[in-house]
């Protein structure tokens, strides 16, 4: 048995915490709107990353992210080969793939990113309206703008992560694989900045366009189909018009071109449009490649800004209508 002094000393120390279950009035402090917005974004961010979700969502998400990582590895390998045979240096200012970072967001992995947008954005935007949960959120001390800010933060955060993680992995692999990693990093700091900026730009741009489409329906299936369908249709129409007219005006039809051209400009790369010369004369159809020079970057900036503003207006209008009902 312990001496009394020792026992009283032990009793004075915290050995654990006993919680009494049952309702008690809350005496602590209440935090502000920023806390509410961040809480909402955090919960939605976790949801978008598949945390606490069913296996179907997790499977879809991780397959798509896995493909992006594989593409990053392929890009690393092919770029190593082009550098070894000396093609990269000659064509850096012209051929987008010579700079693996520039080509990363809108080449082979473009469609994978679109599928990821279609998976994540409708899930975060449609379900709250479909199940009536939006009403409960707005019965809290937050406004509709706070709610939308939380959603935007979650979507842009997750999209930035899935866009940038494979690209940054590629950058890291190239830096570590270089003869002098320090020198490589110093020489490609501009690329790193352009990579981060363009990742954020893509995330915001596609979040708003996809968000506007998702706000038009409560069905996640319709929204997902709408997002992928619109982006594919815009690309098909833009490419077809370009093939037949050879006019750069066609680049403004393709929604992915708007942001793609801004990104190339961030990397300091001129990204011309290669199309085919299709003519129908006297029954012959000669097919030859044609290079179309794009507009100056400010034209794409203005067009992208218009698309983003229009999307924001659609989202605001749809949600305001939902709340007023």
């Amino acid at each position, binding site marked *: 048995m312990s001496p009394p002094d020792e026992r009283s000393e032990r009793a004075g120390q915290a050995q654990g915490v006993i919680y009494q*279950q049952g309702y008690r009035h809350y005496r*602590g402090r*209440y935090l502000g709107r920023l806390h509410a917005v961040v809480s909402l974004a955090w*919960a939605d961010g976790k949801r978008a990353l598949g945390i606490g979700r069913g296996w179907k969502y997790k499977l879809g998400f991780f397959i798509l992210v896995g493909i992006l990582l594989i593409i990053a590895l392929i890009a690393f390998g092919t770029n190593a080969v082009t550098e070894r045979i000396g093609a990269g240096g000659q064509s850096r200012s012209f051929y987008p793939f010579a700079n693996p970072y520039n080509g990363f967001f809108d080449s082979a992995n473009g469609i994978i990113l679109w599928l990821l947008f279609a998976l994540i954005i409708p899930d975060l935007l449609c379900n709250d309206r479909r*199940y009536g949960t939006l*009403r409960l959120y*707005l019965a809290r001390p937050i406004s509709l703008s706070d709610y939308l800010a939380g959603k935007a933060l979650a979507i842009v955060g997750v999209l930035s992560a899935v866009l940038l993680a494979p690209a940054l992995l590629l950058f890291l692999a190239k830096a570590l694989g270089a003869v002098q990693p320090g020198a490589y990093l110093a020489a490609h700091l501009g690329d790193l900045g352009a990579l981060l900026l363009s990742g954020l730009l893509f995330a915001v741009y596609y979040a708003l366009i996809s968000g506007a489409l998702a706000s038009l329906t409560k069905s996640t299936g319709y929204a997902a189909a709408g997002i992928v369908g619109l982006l594919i249709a815009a690309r098909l129409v833009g490419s077809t018009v370009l093939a037949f007219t050879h006019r750069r005006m066609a680049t403004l039809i393709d929604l992915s071109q708007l942001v793609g051209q801004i990104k190339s400009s961030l990397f300091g790369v001129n990204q011309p449009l290669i199309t085919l010369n299709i003519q129908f004369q006297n029954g012959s159809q000669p097919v030859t490649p044609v290079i179309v020079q794009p507009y100056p970057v400010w034209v794409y900036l203005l067009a992208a800004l218009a698309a983003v503003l229009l999307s924001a207006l659609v989202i605001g209008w749809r949600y305001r209508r939902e709340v*007023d009902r």
Partner: protein
Amino acid sequence: MIQTRDLSKRYNGTVALDGVSLQVAPGSIGLLGENGAGKTTFIKLLLGLLQPSSGSARVLSLDVARQGRKLRRRVGYMPEDECLPPDISAMEFTARMGRLSGLPHEAALQRANDVLHLVGLGEGRYRPMGGLSSGMKQRAKLAQALVADPELVLLDEPTSGMDPSGREEMLQLIGEIRENLGISLLLSSHLLQDIERVCDQVIILSAGQVAAQGPLSQLLGQAARSVHLRLVGDVQAFRQALTQAGLSVHGSGMQLTVEGADDQVYDAIIEAAAQSGVQLRRLERASRSLEELFLALRKSEARR
């Protein structure tokens, strides 16, 4: 606690609420009305979720049109319709709602746990809400309304879709929230028994207007129309004395009912008892049920 002045709401020319003026003290308030009477619109206006077309309203001394966010920190809301995401557990959802109301992370978890136990969902709190029964979903909706420790909860048809035993438990729970936790409540329902069971004040809405409002006992008392008596002694003589005094008497044996409930009727009863030498064992003013009052209001509404 709730004050409104000429509060009106119109949707594209349709009047949902028309010039509602009332003043209600803290307590348990019943909001009664048929479907389409304007109950949900009234609640949404009180939460600051809708802007009034005209007039004003104050809840907990806060202007609903200008101080909606401050107000919603102190008010909980349980909507009538489905509003729970099916793939999230009640625990996670209630804690999230707490955080949105400003509770820090740990406090939100602790309080979510506490309120889920309070509403009887302690065992099922980690199950996805899509798999809960309708009664359990109603409890989860009540839990999220209470998580941030509100001073007032607005309950929109809380027993909707529940079986009789579930309804009974829910009403008991709501009664305890008022009596044991001191939280005021506004219970909107078209079920008269629910209001009668839980509330001490009532607001009756009809076609967007206040048809009647006040303490339940007063409203029912005003509508009293007879007095029940239990007697011992010469009942026949007593009955005769009352009839001679011009009163209408029904009943048989030792139990009688006298029509009318004003002071003159009471005086006549006491005088008749003295004359006939009967003992008055019980004298009780028969009040109308809320249902009778509601039907009477509807009749007078229809006559107008």
